[in-house]
């Protein structure tokens, strides 16, 4: 007989996924999180929610990928995968922000220099 996901694990994971989705929604609503950066989190929440609540599905997928002992391990694997995706995405975002920051600082410094030069009395 195939191993199945324990009911309590399923319930706990479902609650956790719903919490994640609610927190992300609240962060968007209060403008602390832009939609652009929230989409990946919402996808994470929805996928985890489906896998947590749908025990038959989780057991089947566990069978496909050869997880024979403990089907909820698939949940961890999927969650880890999504966390990798989010982190990688954030790394690219931070790189872009760093580049833009350099451009801003250069522009500001050049502008300041020009303003100072124009304020000085002409010799």
């Amino acid at each position, binding site marked *: 007989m195939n191993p199945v996901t324990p009911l309590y694990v399923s319930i706990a994971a479902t609650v956790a996924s719903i919490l994640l989705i609610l927190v992300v*929604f609240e962060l*968007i*609503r*209060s*403008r602390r999180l*832009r*939609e*652009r950066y*929230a*989409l990946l989190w*919402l996808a994470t929440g929805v996928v985890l929610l489906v896998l947590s609540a749908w025990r038959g599905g989780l057991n089947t997928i566990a069978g496909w990928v050869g997880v024979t002992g403990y089907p909820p391990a698939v949940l961890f694997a999927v969650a880890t995968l999504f966390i990798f995706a989010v982190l990688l995405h954030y790394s690219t975002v931070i790189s872009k922000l760093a580049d*833009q920051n350099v*451009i*801003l600082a250069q*522009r500001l410094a050049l502008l300041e220099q020009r303003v100072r030069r124009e304020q000085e009395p002409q010799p």
Partner: protein
Amino acid sequence: MPEHRRVAIVPARNEEDAVAGVVEELRAYDPELDVVVIDDGSEDLTAERAAGAGAAVVSLPFNLGIGGAVQTGFKYALDHGYDTVIRLDGDGQHDPQQIPNLLAPLERDEADVVVGSRFAEGAGDYKPPFARRAGIRWFAQLVSLLTGQKLTDTTSGFQAVNTRAIRLFAADYPHDYPEVEAVVMVVRHRLRILEVPAQMRGRETGSSSITMLRSLYYAIKVTLALLVGIFRRRVVPLEESR
């Protein structure tokens, strides 16, 4: 000093072939009208061509996207005390000759935001490709549902807005496909929005910056923003914005 202080905001990114024509057309339409081109981090000669044609040019240090560019224009208008903003795209698809149609409802104080709709009665037969039409229709229906007002074209960048809306947009303006979310914002702040029919010309040069996969991403993103938007606090208090 003219009775009204009006400014045309033209967001442009890499539109060196079209932007001068747009500015010249605007100046020919009304020499009194001030024209500001928001150069959204262009890598070509957009800024030079626009300035050469007689526009004030605000060059952003890097690409902010259409929402950030247009909002720069609204902030410029607020800073310089303009009471009316006319917004049109830098690619030449909006015809300045139709500006009076947009201004009329503002002058009669019937609306705070007037949108030139490609699909309103009498707008002619604009037929975008299937995917784009589907997207436009999806947002028109969603926005109509959320605002309780029948709207046909929520992605049109051909608009005229008065002081109240300038103040709102300078304080807060959405990012991608900003027009769609802006409609919901406008209605939530109890401002009045009105569509008038407008004909668009085909793009003169360049290609639309939206590809298939990106449009799907934007569609999902903007839908999310719309749905969350109705739960948001107002950025400008009602009594101030009315």
